């Protein structure tokens, strides 16, 4: 049997900010008062990114708008995010974990999976090691974590979510019935709002109800994810702790919420070009070419739609991707004010060989050579050391999408 740990920083952004503030002599620990981390409402990033446990008692939740949260508790203390700090905290936590096993998967900025199976001979009992890890992070780094200990990733993750903060929970298969089955079904990993509603309609309210249901029935109701969540409810998960360098990426995309509503086609094109710059750079860094391009739009009325097209050949140059992006945008935009734009590419192929076409509009070899040079300059002198002339006299940021110039790890993304 394997031994897997799931380490989860408690209200990560908030406690990291708290730790850094205390270190600078700040008089209060913001973890102990109703407080939250939120983006700037002026450029429309004003949503709650993290909240303290006292703030939770007033009904403040992650993802709410700052306005909503302030209505619930007007004296809420709000702090801006500091992504550089969060990277430092995340890296420091990761380095401590790496001392216990080489098999550490960074699942997101504040969560890691750790395969402890082979380390038992060296570091001893898993629970002792879990306590040591938890206490070391608290003492050395100044923030608290929850550790879930079990025999697979799913149970370890569910375990770390049981009671917070600063706790260790085991969730061995024998304990599922007592510790996991009484929880509401929405607490189960992969069961979101929509699935919860569907399940509640047929009177499945707890994880236990789902576990005892007929797997074929679940597949009929929820299609193939039905079987997966049924297995999860029974604590079945065979997935391995995978090093991030071994995870195969299937798509690259970036998007941005614009500080004002865009109604002008030319301005929308500028933003799409800035996003394409980022996406294409990331695509080339992975060493891939893409043959599927898609554009997504969110309107001022929060209606979201997207449009995609399969290309005849594979591309990786900014100019060529941007050409497809423009076509897609013109085909799908209905003229409403735009709040949010996104560019995504997928269907990858390793970029060694390339099929030429009689109908290629531009000399793509030249473009590839150009992008290679631009990438090198940006790697050496900084992302914005060379930008397209189109952006020189405008106020549109020349490269958009991603936090901290894409160095930041969010769910699924990771700097290689």
């Amino acid at each position, binding site marked *: 049997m394997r031994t897997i740990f799931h380490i989860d920083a408690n209200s990560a952004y908030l406690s*990291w900010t708290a730790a*850094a503030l*205390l*270190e600078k002599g700040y008089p209060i620990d913001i973890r102990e008062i109703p407080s939250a981390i939120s983006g700037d409402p002026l450029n429309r990033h004003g949503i709650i990114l993290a909240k303290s446990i006292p703030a939770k008692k007033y009904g403040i939740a992650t993802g709410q708008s700052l306005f909503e949260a302030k209505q619930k508790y007007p004296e809420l203390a709000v702090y801006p995010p500091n992504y550089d700090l969060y990277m*430092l*905290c995340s890296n*420091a936590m990761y380095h401590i974990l790496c001392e216990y096993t080489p098999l550490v998967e960074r699942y997101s900025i504040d969560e890691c999976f750790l395969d402890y199976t082979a380390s038992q001979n060296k570091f001893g009992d898993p629970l002792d090691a879990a306590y040591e890890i938890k206490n070391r992070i608290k003492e*050395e*780094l*100044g923030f608290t974590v929850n550790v879930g200990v079990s025999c697979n990733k799913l149970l370890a993750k569910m375990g770390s979510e049981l009671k917070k903060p600063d706790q260790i929970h085991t969730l061995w298969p024998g304990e599922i019935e007592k510790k996991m089955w009484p929880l509401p079904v929405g607490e189960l990993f992969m069961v979101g709002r929509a699935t919860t509603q569907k399940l509640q309609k047929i009177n499945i309210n707890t994880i236990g109800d789902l576990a005892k249901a007929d797997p074929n029935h679940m597949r009929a109701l929820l299609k193939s994810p039905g079987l997966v969540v049924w297995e999860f409810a029974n604590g079945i998960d065979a997935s391995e702790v995978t090093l991030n360098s071994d995870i195969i990426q299937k798509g690259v995309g970036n998007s941005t919420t614009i500080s004002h509503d865009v109604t002008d086609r030319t301005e929308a094109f500028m933003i799409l070009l800035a996003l394409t710059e980022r996406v294409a750079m990331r695509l080339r860094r992975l060493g891939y070419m893409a043959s599927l391009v898609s554009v997504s739009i969110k309107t001022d009325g929060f209606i979201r739609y997207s449009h995609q097209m399969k290309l005849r050949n594979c591309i990786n140059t900014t100019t060529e991707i941007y050409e497809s992006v423009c076509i897609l945008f013109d085909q799908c935009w209905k003229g409403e004010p735009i709040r949010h734009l996104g560019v995504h590419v997928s269907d990858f192929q390793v970029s060694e060989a390339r099929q030429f076409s009689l109908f290629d509009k531009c000399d793509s070899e030249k473009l590839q050579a150009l992008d290679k040079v631009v990438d090198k300059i940006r790697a050496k002198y900084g992302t914005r050391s060379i930008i397209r002339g189109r952006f020189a006299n405008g106020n549109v940021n020349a490269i958009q999408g991603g936090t901290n110039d894409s160095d930041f790890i969010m769910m699924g993304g990771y700097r290689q």
Partner: protein
Amino acid sequence: MKILAEPIEAAVWFKSKEKPHPIKFRYSDREGLVRKVNVDKIISVDEIKTAGIRAFVYRCQSEIDGAMKSYELKYLVSDCRWELYKM
């Protein structure tokens, strides 16, 4: 001792194989008065990584205003900066 985290100007001896060794520093106290302090004795040096920020904390002792006082200096590695950390 209380955390002050006050940025200071410091004269430091960078040794060949050991950690940097603060010799004297200058800080403004609460009244805004600039004070000069010679680091008489370094009691201990500890590496800390609170919130992932790497720094070295020097526990020191000096004579300030005729009285022996202990205090802590902090060297922030990524900023290359010194602070009067606690006093």
